[in-house]
């Protein structure tokens, strides 16, 4: 069990993919801690293992070896059923491609995690509409994703990640599909509504424009964590990371 302040504790995480002819090692002994109340960004070049790492942290991919505790629970110790339950209650997701269900309205999309957690649909949609108001989309609750701009869709996705009050939110490139201004709005929104003392945010990103919003940045390369930098103590880190990506 981890200490309560830690949202994520990874020790010697190892993950390889078997592609038939060869084995690709995506994670080579990752050690990483993410604290509650923290916004951690994972950066690094394409193929360095960022997505694999958040997949393992989010409990949607099993590591080959090593330990990954999330909110004090070791994923590998959970049965499949409990894993699903834990994920449904404690993890929120924001994706690069938004991944909204195209045939559901914005409010219905936001309500999905609540419905998965067993809440009645009408109540879930009502709660979702309230959250949409928080992200500035009260008037678009009945719109389909196709009727929304990219930025609006990402705001719906953020509301969906938050609606069930999870304690860990994982975001995969949340701003990379958006223009500069919209990207800044989205990260500001994430920072303002998602960061809380009892919750941690992990954002995988290439987008140097948003590095300043992180509390810490973990730089990955070739399946390893090269460095973990506290942004407030290293204001020039942006440029350093920019060069890496």
């Amino acid at each position, binding site marked *: 069990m981890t200490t309560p302040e830690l949202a994520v504790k990874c020790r010697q995480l190892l993950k390889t993919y078997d592609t038939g002819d060869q084995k690709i090692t995506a994670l080579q002994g990752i050690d990483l801690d993410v604290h509650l109340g923290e916004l951690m960004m994972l950066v690094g070049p394409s193929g360095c293992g960022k*997505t694999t790492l*958040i*997949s393992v942290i*989010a409990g*949607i*991919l099993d590591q080959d070896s090593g330990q990954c505790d999330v909110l004090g629970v070791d994923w590998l110790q959970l049965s499949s*059923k409990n894993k*699903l*339950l*834990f*994920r*449904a*209650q404690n*993890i929120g*997701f924001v*994706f*690069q*491609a938004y*991944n909204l*269900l*195209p*045939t*559901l309205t914005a409010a*219905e999309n936001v309500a*999905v*995690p609540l*419905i*998965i*957690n067993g809440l009645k*649909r009408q109540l879930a949609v009502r709660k979702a509409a309230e959250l949409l108001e928080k992200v500035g989309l009260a008037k678009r609750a009945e719109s389909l994703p196709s009727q929304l701009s990219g930025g609006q869709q990402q705001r719906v996705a953020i509301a969906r990640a938050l609606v069930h009050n999870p304690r860990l939110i994982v975001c*995969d*490139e949340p701003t990379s599909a958006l223009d500069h201004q919209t990207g800044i709005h989205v990260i500001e929104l994430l920072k303002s509504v998602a960061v809380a003392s009892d919750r941690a945010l992990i954002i995988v990103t290439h987008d140097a424009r948003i590095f300043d919003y992180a509390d810490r940045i973990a730089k990955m390369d070739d399946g390893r964590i090269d460095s973990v930098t506290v942004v407030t103590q290293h204001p020039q880190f942006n440029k350093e990371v920019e060069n890496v990506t």
Partner: protein
Amino acid sequence: MNYIALKMLMGDRGKYLGIVMGLTFASLIMTQQPAIFVGLMARSFSFISDVGLPDIWVMDPKVQFVDDIKPLQDTELYRVRGVEGVDWAMPLYKGMIKARLYDGTFQTCNVTGLDDTTLIGGPPVMLKGKLEDLRRSDGVIVDIDGARDKLAKKPTVNGGKPVPLDVGDTLELNDRRAVVVGIAKNTRTFQSQPIIYTTYSRAMLYAPRERKLLSFVLVKAKPGEDIARLVQRIRDSTGLAAYTQDEFKTLTVNYFLKNTGIPINFGISVLLGFIVGAAIAGQTFYNFTLENLRQFGVLKAMGTSNWVLLRMILLQAVLVGSIGYGMGVGLTALFGYAMRNTILAFKFPWQLLVFSATGVTLIVAFAALISIRKVIKLEPAVVFKG
């Protein structure tokens, strides 16, 4: 989650309609073609059904079906009457005789000769005249379909409609005058020849000269008599073939099934309908699932279990299956209704509903199964792939 499943399904109208149409088509073919087949088969024994009243049909042992007439000697009637347990036994003539129409053309007709006294074996429904009118001089009763169609008179004006044969009109049967005294409604027969009813004695005059002319002996069992035992007793004591109504119908249908290509032809149609329906619906449903795989991945990542996803897919499959089945069956019923007064054979028993429901269920199960397999094997980590 059911609501989400239904919205996923119906949100994409094009795909949704594609799947429903595929199943509708399969269901339509799987009911309409067998309905025509059953209709045709039912026509093969419609004469037996129309005669109705007797419990047992007695005939030459070589007879293979109802139109396969192998005449008996008239004395056989008295031998049957002598069998213990027989309440009454009546003669019936059935044969094909050429009728000469008023304009000199000829038409082969199915002539039925009824017992002169009782007129047992007459048409089920009289539309004009009465059955007893057969006792009038040269009287015959003609079925309405024959009267309107093959026996109809030429139009009175060029390009007009043929004039149906009516009461009072005359025909010639084997050079003998026959006067129409009634119009009857019969179940259409397999051969679709006009049906003419007359008395047994008059039928003997119309029929070509032959040593034996008695086609069937119609038997009614005494009240409380065991029919099966009586059938056996008639067989044993006369050496003739005796069948209950149902047995005779089965004998007739079996002959058509074994000796004509009808079942194979219809079977191929039904099989093609099933295969094409399965291909269209299965492929479209599978494609629909593939296109929604990412959405299923998102739901899986968010904590939806495989069991719930399976239920969602099954619900989608059951819904499109039910709608497609309902529409297909509805269209078949509509087709049957629209064709009710035409020559087309059509019979839609409840067994066909079960048959097509089974077919559609198989298609839907197949489509759902291949889709479910894909979703169950889906790694939720797919959601992080760009």
